[in-house]
């Protein structure tokens, strides 16, 4: 069965804005557009969690490095389409 939704990964700000405008346009008669904004510290890996090893001890965990710069993660969703972008203040 073909997937009707597909995640496009991070879009550039311009492409995101045009796609978002299109979403609002398509949702005029029916449906909702959901926009989510949150702070993003640039991490590409999840926070490591201590795990129980075979010898019964907990594994050592090196935490992720302190973020160098923060930005803004913006996601938008309409029906089955999702888009995201990262906004830098510079």
């Amino acid at each position, binding site marked *: 069965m073909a997937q009707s939704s597909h995640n496009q990964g991070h879009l550039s700000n311009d492409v995101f804005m045009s796609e978002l405008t299109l979403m609002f346009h398509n949702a005029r008669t029916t449906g909702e557009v959901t926009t*989510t*904004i949150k702070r993003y510290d640039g991490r590409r890996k999840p926070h490591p969690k201590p795990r129980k090893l075979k010898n019964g001890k907990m594994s050592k965990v090196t935490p992720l490095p302190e973020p160098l710069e923060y930005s*803004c993660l913006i996601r938008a969703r309409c029906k089955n389409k999702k888009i995201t972008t990262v906004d830098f203040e510079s």
Partner: protein
Amino acid sequence: MVLIETFEEFAKAAEHVYLNAPMKTRFVMKYNHSNCCLRVKVTDDISLLQYKTDSQQELRKLEKWISTLVKHMASEER
């Protein structure tokens, strides 16, 4: 469902939630054009604040407020 009546109250409470946990807080806005209703939700996965509006004037206030928050998010401040 904590639906806050006035925008000013909502903005103050939401800022408090955000400044307390900037990395965990997210702002969600859901817009339905056929009902002309915008619902705003702010949560840090512990507390939840909601606000609803259909007025353009409130939308302008919201827009200004969000832009100040987004500036903070992208800045170096913790």
